[in-house]
């Protein structure tokens, strides 16, 4: 390099440098976002609502709230099988009622429902939102608050008045009043359920009525002492009946004669029971979070064995006592092959020898015939133990994200709620008729009498693996009773889950639930 040219170059760049420095120096250090919207007022409220609704998809999953409502009960367990499903003991804890305030499923349910709540607030408090959109967001918030109230008993709430945010914590009964008030306030604004299935969630009048029926049915639990006994006021039961009747009166719903159509990949077309429906599209994982929670794959995969199609996760099973409580001929037990051309998988409970699509016997990974047996320990189980649950049929075209919609409240549930309200009001005869309407559709003989015990059993058989068992058992005061693989009764404080430890630490308004 020639000296002079270097000199020239450096001189020039120096001059440029000094000029540039002048431009850059002493900036205001503004935090500029280059890839995100920062002006909320420019966003159409409908898009904010779509996000707020997306946390609905957290519920139809194996972990989180679903496990808290199913594995805690006489209906399901998550056994550890050698290398599978230890997961720091979270599944065993849930079945044994020994969960802690750091259990991942408990924390996830708390976080996700509350996040949905906050996003719904963003729509409700948005000046651009129409009355309908506000009503739909209010419905979504009521749904999220319902879960927090039902599972945790305390509902943190941020009140916005004139742009000022006040944080408070609603007690269970305050939350009940708030949720019911909100729903009843918007029910007139919400639209009727549509005859054509929607690909995305829409809050409807009938969904709100279904949720209100559920709330009034449980009012005794939500406003009474945790340990019970609960009293169910006749006025509340009348509310349940009137909301159930309103749903029937809409003329859009009926009990499906083919039970498994309610859970099929095309259930949006075949089922007449989807009152509060969370719709899925095949191939789309609508999960709002990156952890995969929200995909309905998680209703199919937890139980099936690796060597079955679809190859599952070899985990959850129903319990022997629960399986044995079904009457012979109950179509809800399933047994028919779902799709002979691709798999030997059957509907309902998977019991005994499993086959592939050619009819050949499947084996487990140790080479033993794959025969699912009823008895299954909670720890140290082998691959064949335990009856698996295949209520939502696999979507063989979209194994990871099936097209099966999930009805949070199904029409059969509405009728059973009405039957229960009638029974609690002393009108067992009218209740019995409703129960028998369902039993007939399920291939069973009519019952002669209706008792709390037979109604609870019927609810279990009709609604297994749909996320209602804990709610039902609590209401019938059976939640803490011993079940298979939990030999002693648990304390009544287990009817509520603990506020996650990390939350108690940062929100002094929350007091940890009793017993934790």
């Amino acid at each position: 390099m020639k000296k002079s040219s270097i000199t020239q170059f450096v001189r020039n760049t120096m001059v440029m440098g000094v000029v540039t420095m002048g431009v850059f120096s002493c900036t205001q250090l503004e935090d500029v976002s280059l890839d995100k919207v920062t002006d909320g007022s420019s966003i159409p409220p409908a898009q904010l609502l779509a996000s707020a609704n997306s946390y609905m998809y957290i519920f139809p999953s194996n972990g989180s709230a679903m496990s808290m409502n199913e594995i805690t009960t006489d209906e399901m367990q998550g056994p550890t099988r050698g290398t599978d499903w230890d997961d720091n003991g979270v599944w065993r804890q849930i079945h044994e009622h020994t969960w802690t305030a750091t259990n991942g499923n408990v924390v996830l349910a708390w976080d996700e429902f509350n996040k949905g709540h906050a996003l719904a607030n963003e729509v409700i408090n948005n000046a651009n939102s129409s009355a309908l959109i506000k009503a739909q967001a209010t419905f979504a918030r009521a749904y999220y608050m319902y879960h927090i109230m039902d599972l945790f008993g305390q509902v943190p709430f941020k009140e916005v008045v004139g742009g000022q945010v006040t944080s408070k914590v609603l007690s269970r009964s305050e939350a009940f009043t708030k949720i019911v008030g909100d729903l009843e306030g918007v029910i007139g604004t919400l639209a009727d359920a549509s005859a054509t299935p929607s690909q995305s969630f829409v809050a409807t009048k009938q969904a709100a009525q279904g949720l209100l029926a559920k709330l009034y049915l449980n009012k005794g639990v939500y406003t009474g002492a945790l340990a019970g006994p609960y009293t169910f006021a006749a006025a509340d039961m009348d509310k349940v009946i009137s909301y159930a009747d309103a749903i029937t009166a809409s003329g859009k719903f009926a009990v499906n004669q083919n039970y498994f159509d309610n859970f099929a990949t095309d259930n949006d077309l075949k089922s007449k029971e989807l009152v509060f429906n969370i719709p899925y599209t095949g191939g789309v994982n609508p999960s709002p979070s990156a952890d995969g929670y929200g995909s309905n794959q998680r209703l199919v995969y937890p139980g099936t064995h690796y060597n079955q199609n679809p190859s599952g996760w070899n985990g959850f099973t129903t319990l022997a006592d629960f399986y044995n409580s079904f009457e012979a001929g109950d179509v809800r037990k399933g047994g028919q092959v779902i799709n002979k051309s691709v798999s030997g998988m059957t509907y309902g409970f998977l019991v005994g020898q499993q086959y592939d699509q050619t009819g050949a016997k499947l084996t487990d990974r140790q080479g033993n015939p794959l025969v699912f047996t009823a008895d299954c320990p909670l720890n140290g189980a082998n691959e064949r133990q335990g009856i698996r649950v295949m209520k939502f049929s696999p979507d063989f075209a979209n194994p990871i994200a099936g097209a099966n919609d999930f009805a949070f409240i199904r029409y059969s549930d509405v009728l059973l709620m009405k039957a229960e309200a009638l029974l609690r009001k002393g009108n067992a005869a009218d209740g019995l008729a409703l129960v028998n309407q369902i039993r007939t559709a399920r291939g069973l003989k009519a019952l002669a009498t209706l008792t709390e015990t037979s109604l609870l059993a019927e609810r279990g058989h009709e609604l297994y693996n749909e996320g209602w068992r804990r709610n039902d058992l609590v209401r019938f005061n059976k939640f803490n009773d011993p079940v298979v693989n939990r030999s002693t009764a648990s304390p009544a404080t287990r009817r509520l889950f603990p506020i996650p430890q990390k939350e108690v630490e940062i929100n002094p308004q929350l007091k940890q639930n009793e017993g934790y």
Partner: protein
Amino acid sequence: MNNHFYRWFGRPVRQGAASKSLLKTALMAITMLVSISIYAQDKTVSGKVTDKGDGSGMPGVSVSVKGSNRGTQTDINGAYKIAAGSNATLVFSFVGYAKQEVAVGNRSELNVSLASEDKALDEVVVIGYGTQKVKDATGSVSSLSSKDFNKGVINSPEQLLQGRVAGVQMTPNSGDPGAGININIRGTASLRGNNNPLFVVDNVPLDNSDVVNNAGAVGIGTVTSRNPLNFLNPADIENISILKDASAAAIYGARGANGVVLITTKKGKSGAGVFNFSMSGSVASAAKKYDLLSPSEFKAEMQRAGQDVNNKLIIGSGSTDWQEQVLRTAFTQNYNMSFGGGSDKTSYFFSLGYQDQQGIIKNTSQDKVQARINASHKLFDDKVTVGVALTTAKINDVYGATSGNVGFDGNLVSRMINLNPTFPVYATDGSYFTTGGVSFRNPVSLLNNFHQYGPTNRTLANIFASWEIVKGLTYKASLSQDNVATTLNSYVDVNTPGFQNSVPNNAGGATIGNQNRTTSTIEHTLNFKKVVGKHDIEALAGFSYQKFANSGSNVQANYFTVPAGTNLTNNIGYVDNTGSNKPFNGTSFANQSELQSYFGRASYNYDGKYYLTGTLRVDGSSKFGANNKYGYFPAVNGAWKISGEEFMKDSFFSNLKLRAGYGVTGNSEGFPANQTVTTFIPNANNAGISKENIANADLKWESTTSYGLGIDFSVMKGRLSGTVDYFNKTTNNLLFPLSAPQPDVATTRWSNLDASVVNKGVEVTLAYDVIKSGDFTWTASANATFLDNKLEKLNNTVLTGDIFGQGLSGAYVQPLTAGYPLYSFFVPEFKGFDAKGQNILSEKSIYAGSPFPTMSWGLNNDLSFGKWSVGMFINGQSGGYIFNNTALALGGAPTLNQGNNSDKSWIDAKESFTNGLAASTRFVEKSDFVRLSNLSISRRIAVESKHIKGLSVSLSGQNLLLISSYKGLDPEVTNPGASRNGIASRGIDYVSYPKARTFTLSLSANF
């Protein structure tokens, strides 16, 4: 220490000193410029330069004719030849030795012997925005030059130092070529991933963020981030200084809390151009393999498990050593050439390096080309100096399926461990053997069908100018830009067995991720120096502005229609876009932040005995809200050179100095931009948009307050010297994504955590000239660090330390706990097996140790005998623990029962085949080790040639011997994939890329 080994490379080894003496030489040359008419009377003068200490010939000594720009260097034997007139004066100079000037007179042979200066004290260390003589240092600064560096295959500059500096702990993520390294200076203080120090290359502070678009490959986890410093050629490095304490690092204020590593590259020297060439070839293989069951032993275990051994899916027809299928003997070649020289006004240096390194896992490699140019020139009566420096590199990484966060279906490492040894590689029809299971991965098909590769281009350009306004007052301006562009391509071929669960229709999956980072830096400094009698004053004032821009995009595709064997990332458009298929997914991001700083430093010393330095840096960052945009980082330190006192005149100590310092430094690395603004993000699955963050104007700098005391001493006339330092650092206001009070649009929100992390300890460094007689010298040096890390206060539950494997979802082993070291293991106590062979575990988790060694040490020996020299470096650590996640997930009876193989040391005959996989103290092991890290033997070769000045060959070995009780491969490893709640874990070993043992033969010549 003796400089023999590197002297004949012809490069004075301490740049700071060299350039100073050059400067002086040049200045004198100008002022005493004599007529060039002397050229007419030139004759050839020759001679030999020897070391006054041992009489050996000194290669690489700079010989110049005073007042001219003629110069040369001594050859390998210390001989030189130069043309000079009778009235000329020859100047002999070499770093660390007193310069000599000798008049030629009528002699034609001129032999000179140079005396070593008190080397340790006259060494110059680079400190932030300046240099300092070691004897004047008041902060804790360690400096290493090329002779002290590790040898062999070196991917990045910090590997040159691994184990050699007290207080600096380096843990490589894995044995993957170019893998990242965790560097902790005086302990780990921050909860965020990045505890690495600030790197400053020739005064330019770098953005040391990861440079890989880690959006994740298809069903195989995310790749291990590459070391951001891979772009610097280790051969270009002259010296590395490490500012360890706050009083030294405070000049870097907000970026100094993790310490500062200052890298100085080689510069051209005054005199004739010197051309260096070196080449090396290396052979590497796995230092240790897993001790797996042989096919017959495996069959016996299957029988013990009660499995049907006649079933071909349990005992297959093959016999395969899967480690052999995956691992290989790897070769590396490295070439470096450089040319540097200059005159009294100009210096220039060019270098070009090429390295092609194979990984010991097949189909993994890193090759890179690195070039560097720097030049400087003096103008206007030498009052102005201008300079440029340009480093550019292209690195091609080829990653195998080796990510640390892979699921149960496995990657190359987990499959080579646990795949049934009775299975063949190929089925009888020539296809890859598979059991038909949807997640059955054959490692050979993974090697051939899973591809992940991409280039990284990085260019660092710097121009600067300094102007001596009046004597003692110098203004300097520097402008630099650092550009990184990287692409990561990954794809799983169509119909690859074992991907049915992650690849729709098994029709292939591909991702292409691009990322660009640009850092622009402008700095102005004003330096003042004045000596008045015994008062020595130095002052610095400066302004610095940096802008960090980062952007990237990512496209992912599925449903390919091309035949198997096609490069899917090159053909990402060939997908089936019909029906309900959604073959494409894309994301992009862009962010930026700015840092604006004002700083000053004033130093005073009286008579070279009493030293006082004060520093203040004010940093403002766009990442912080209006309420706390600026952070103030002061430091003060002082020293007393006791040996300079009259009463110490005849003492045993040739040097004795006491140092003390106090300072505050900040940290905002790893903390993202845009936390002070409200932001909304889209959700592609439902066409919605949700609020993601609510502006927080109160966020403030994480800060570390530290104090320390140190003693520097040398005795026995400098034969034994050493340093002892005590340090105590407390980090507060930790920036952390803390849980947000619900209901909230976010689960976590960046906050200043009300917690303190305290790191305290003692560092000892000793150097001893064991033998120094004639041809034989033996120098030994040792360093040791005693570290105590503790989380002293924490009011929040933070669960971290994710572990991986089947049946271990959501499992963690490092809940942060006050009163214990960060990342301490808390797991149930393992009390053996019950009668059924199931774990007996304590109900509560107990403290099972910390991943941080309480003591780490290094011991170096350099021997030189005539033309031979030998260097040996041993290092070790004790008191730390490691969680063997590999053994938990892939070992013992339960995995055998799945038909998987296991390391023999992980099998316990008492364990049931249906035992659950649970984290417990059973898998927490001591990470103590002693390692023979480096052994090199080299020989100078005398060449009777006027063209070649020096030639040498050397053979070195790396990672030669490891003594450890650890049941994995190597206890010095960490799984970077294992992060949870925004915290990277430490001390968790999970299917790590095995480490290599490497032998390197190299040849070096200068011309």
